[in-house]
């Protein structure tokens, strides 16, 4: 059924919107500012839909993914800077997600953390090795939908719905404007993290999209990221309804799961943990593939899961090496949640290097023929480019001024 063909969009969104850092970040935003930042999530969702649709269209029409465009449009040097920054952030994020998978398994099983890191790495490697791209999308994309338990939890906590509605109107009622700005920038940066579009566009090529799939591309972008945004809303509402008045500052993955346990009991807890497990695993796969896609596309190697491992040996080796590096990093005991916060902020700095080429290529009629950007896509694209530049310039100063959001 065609409705199931939106699994790519769902997996990209799950990996981008509800990875380990976003889970904690969204709930923290609610626990700190109530519902005041809901409007920021809307801005982020629209932005990633606009650019993902462009990426998917480029993939469908030209058969090329984002990093092909980066190399061709920016030239080797600038493209190399974009590649290196993307790989550093990818590796940080992959490390954090593997740590997150291990934490989630520990909360479910009680087994020692370090053993679970190894188990997580091995299972991810086996799944990526033996499973087709289609089934990876379905398993992790649809498994992550267990996170919809947070929507139920949010409703069960009986928020003041008029206050929730007011949260969709831009406003700021706080004595900590810098902290508010930090969260706003972090939420926007997390919504538009480059690895989402690298994964999405490469996934479009993996799925052999052609111009007849442009409708499917739009559906994937809108439904997938719309769902990701809905999950973000739910998490923020849980944070605002349960944690804000009690003065709780959620720092741990367990704190997030508590947000489902308190209103829904054991079943809520288990669904939340299973959903988090699939979402964070999905994010690990997104970033693992994004890293391998980016390098292979930039250097002109064969790439893709639709080829057998022997058909794309350097691509296969790349994701293998990335996985081993990330496992080694997690074993050092680094805090996965804090690491992904840094990753989001640093990836925000390099956002223009990803999104400018996309906009250029999507307008290039020699690439795109009659499928180049229309007026609406260009207007939205330029507006969001301005937003991206603001995010890029302010991310690091806010990181410093707020002491990584600790105020």
């Amino acid at each position, binding site marked *: 059924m065609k409705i199931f063909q939106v699994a790519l969009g769902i997996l990209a969104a799950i990996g981008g919107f509800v990875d380990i850092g976003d889970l904690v970040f969204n709930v923290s935003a609610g626990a700190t500012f109530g519902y005041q930042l809901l409007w920021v999530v809307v801005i982020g969702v629209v932005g990633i839909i606009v650019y993902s649709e462009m990426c998917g269209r480029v993939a469908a029409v030209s058969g090329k993914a984002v990093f092909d465009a980066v190399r061709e449009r920016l030239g080797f040097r600038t493209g190399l800077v974009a590649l290196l920054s993307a790989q550093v952030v990818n590796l940080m994020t992959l490390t954090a997600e593997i740590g997150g998978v291990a934490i989630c398994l520990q*909360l479910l*099983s009680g087994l020692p953390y370090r053993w679970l890191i190894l188990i997580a790495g091995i299972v991810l490697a086996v799944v990526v090795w033996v499973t087709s791209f289609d089934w990876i999308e379905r398993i992790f994309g649809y498994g992550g939908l267990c996170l919809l338990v947070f929507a139920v939890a949010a409703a069960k906590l009986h928020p003041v719905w008029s206050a929730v509605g007011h949260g969709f109107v831009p406003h700021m009622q706080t004595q900590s404007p810098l902290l508010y700005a930090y969260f706003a920038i972090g939420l926007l940066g997390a919504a538009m993290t480059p690895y989402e579009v690298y994964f999405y566009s490469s996934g479009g090529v993996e799925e052999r999209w052609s111009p007849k799939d442009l409708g499917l591309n739009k559906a994937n972008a809108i439904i997938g990221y719309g769902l990701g945004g809905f999950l973000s809303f739910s998490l923020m509402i849980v944070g605002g309804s349960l944690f804000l008045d009690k*003065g709780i500052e959620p720092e741990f993955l*367990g704190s997030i*799961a508590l947000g489902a346990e308190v209103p829904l009991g*054991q079943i809520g807890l*288990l669904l939340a*943990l299973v959903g988090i497990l699939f979402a964070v695993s999905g994010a690990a796969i997104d970033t693992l593939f994004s890293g391998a896609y980016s390098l292979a596309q930039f250097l002109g190697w064969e790439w893709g899961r639709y080829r057998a491992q022997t058909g794309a040996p350097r691509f296969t080796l790349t994701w293998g090496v990335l996985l081993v590096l990330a496992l080694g990093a997690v074993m050092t005991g680094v805090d996965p949640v804090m690491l992904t916060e840094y990753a989001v902020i*640093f990836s925000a700095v390099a956002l223009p290097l990803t999104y400018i080429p996309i906009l250029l290529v999507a307008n290039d009629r020699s690439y795109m023929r009659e499928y180049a950007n229309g007026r609406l896509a260009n207007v939205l694209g330029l507006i969001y480019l301005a937003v991206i530049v603001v995010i890029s310039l302010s991310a690091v100063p806010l990181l410093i001024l707020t002491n990584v959001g*600790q105020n």
Partner: protein
Amino acid sequence: MRRGLALCLAAAALAGCNGGTVDKHALKRDAEKVGSLATEGELLANDMSKGASTKYFARMHAKELSRAASNLADALAERPISPGIEAHVHKLSRLAAKVSSQLEQLHLHPTNRAIAKAMRQPLSADADAADRLSK
């Protein structure tokens, strides 16, 4: 490119700095953190007392909270303190250690509803005490 990398590294180092002297602002923030841990522990204890949690989740999450409180207690005991607030900082350090040991009970007895029920009120009281210290 080298300048950019240096800037990013400096940013990471500066942002990560959280040591140094405990002043009034740091005392307030740390008191809020202790209160947060105690209140979260109370929520967890409440669920445990009703059988609304699972054994492994309760055990592991209580341990995480306990460890965080213990780390705070140690940090408050070891860091230099601004003049005039020494008594408050020592009091907060002892409170954080108390919260840690209460959470440790939840960690050690994840299926014991009676212990979980018994921990609710002390954790709530500790959260109130932390709240008073934060003001």
